[in-house]
């Protein structure tokens, strides 16, 4: 499903963010990536969504080799990967329904189909009844669940969640994690980055630890080191 082979990424002003990283993630896996700030976690995720290009190495996602990926095909790649950001990246002038619909509108889904699809995803993330609320009227946890709803509404095979619990209190953080687990149970590969030790230790999933741009451990059923 996801293969990174000796991937290196360096920036002119910040030095090397990732040093010859190799990684293999199977379909339907739930993988947690941990590491201190500046370790290279976000760079890794940006490479997967093709926001960044590696300096060397190979990346293959769902059979797509990024080396041969044309710029015009990037939108199609991104439609296969759902992304959840720490800062939500919701549109403040759109309500819950419209924020989710936005992801479907840009791929040309008809209005009737959108109206039919959104209630299902709202049920999954537990936001039924909040359709008309604007992001400013939601709690942090609700906003993050809305961001997850938008990321999964197109039923991507991969969901990347970049520190989705970073701004949340423990209760809301667990709400978000439960939603991610539910989505993983439906068959979506989930890649989660987090600093939250308690979450990592309780989830008992595969944990990849990155430090100074290198993978220092990769263990199934692992814990925060």
């Amino acid at each position, binding site marked *: 499903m996801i293969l990174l082979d000796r991937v290196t990424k360096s920036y002119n002003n910040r030095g090397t963010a990732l040093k010859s990283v190799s990684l293999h993630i199977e379909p339907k896996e739930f993988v947690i990536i941990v590491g201190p700030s500046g370790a290279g976690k976000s760079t890794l995720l940006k490479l997967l969504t093709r926001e960044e290009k590696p300096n060397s190495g190979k990346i293959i996602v769902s059979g797509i080799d990024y080396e041969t990926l044309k710029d015009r095909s990037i*939108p199609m*790649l*991104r*439609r296969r990967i759902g992304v959840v950001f720490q800062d939500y990246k919701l*549109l403040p002038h759109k309500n819950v329904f419209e924020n989710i619909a936005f992801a479907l509108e840009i791929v*040309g*889904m008809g209005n009737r189909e959108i109206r039919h699809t959104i209630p299902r995803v709202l049920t999954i993330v537990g936001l039924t009844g909040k359709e008309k609320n604007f992001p400013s009227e939601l709690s942090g946890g609700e906003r993050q669940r809305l961001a997850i709803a938008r990321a999964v509404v197109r039923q991507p095979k991969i969901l990347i969640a970049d520190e989705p619990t970073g701004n949340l209190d423990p209760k809301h953080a667990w709400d978000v994690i439960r939603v991610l687990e539910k989505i993983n149970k439906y068959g979506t590969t989930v890649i989660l980055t987090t600093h939250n030790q308690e979450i990592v230790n309780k989830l008992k999933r595969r944990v990849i630890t990155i430090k100074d741009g290198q993978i220092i451990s990769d263990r199934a059923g692992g814990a925060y080191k």
Partner: protein
Amino acid sequence: MKRKLILLKRVLGAGLKNFVRNSWLSVAATAVMVVALIIILSTVVLNVTARNAITDLSKNLQVSVYLKDSASPSDVKRLQNDLLLNKYVSSVSYVSSAEAQQQFSQSYQNDQQLLESLALVGSGSLPASLEVSVSNLSKMQEVGAIPLEPTYNSTVDSVTLGKTDVKKTITRAASAQHYITTVSLGLAIVFAVVSMLIIFNTIRMAIFTRAEEIRIMKLLGATPSYIRGPFLVESSIYGVIAGLIAASLVMAAIYSLLGKVSTQSEFSATYSLFTQHRIVVAMYVGAVLVGILVGIISSMFAMEKHLKLKNW
């Protein structure tokens, strides 16, 4: 296909929404474009008017060859044939002394004193002449030189270039046409550039306002054309509205101003040309197309500089 139509509909809708959302900037951008288009259209109309007027006036270009009383009919005939050999001579007509007098009397029938003086001098006081119509203003000298050749010394008394003030009028009209073209083209360029700058800024501001939305669109997998589309639609709307207003104002000017002088032969051809159905349609279509072109070029520049769609 269905998805593409849905996307097209959404792009059009978003463009229209942007246009309404930036209403004040939209009004400014449209207004300046209206001025630019009016100048462009007026340049065309004024040029056509001047050219038609010159063509009409040129019909009256005449070289008058006054004949001596002693000129023999055979010499006059020879001169007449010689003149007709020149390709810029469209016709040569003989006006006898009596006919000249009759024309003079008709022209000055209200000036009793002048007519009485003429009667006093006698019927043969005006010379016979050859009236030579010339098709090209600049060739009048050349045509006028033919009767002045030595061989016609005994036939020709004098030659006058331009029987009336037509020559001066045409020269003035030609230089005015040149002046109008230069000035209006200059103005059209200035206003077109100003209007492009305003649209450029309008689109730039729209891009800045929607920067976060555009970034999210990119991350969610929107195609570059879906992101660019609304901006192109917005700037095209400026062009369409400006084109329609400019063409309407110019047409109103044609009907009201040119309509007043349409009975004069110099302007009748122009008036009937610009009131033809197909020309009216062409003016509207032309103005709208130029407006859309100016709008699209400006927004393309703005998007190229600020949208950064190349850097995915």
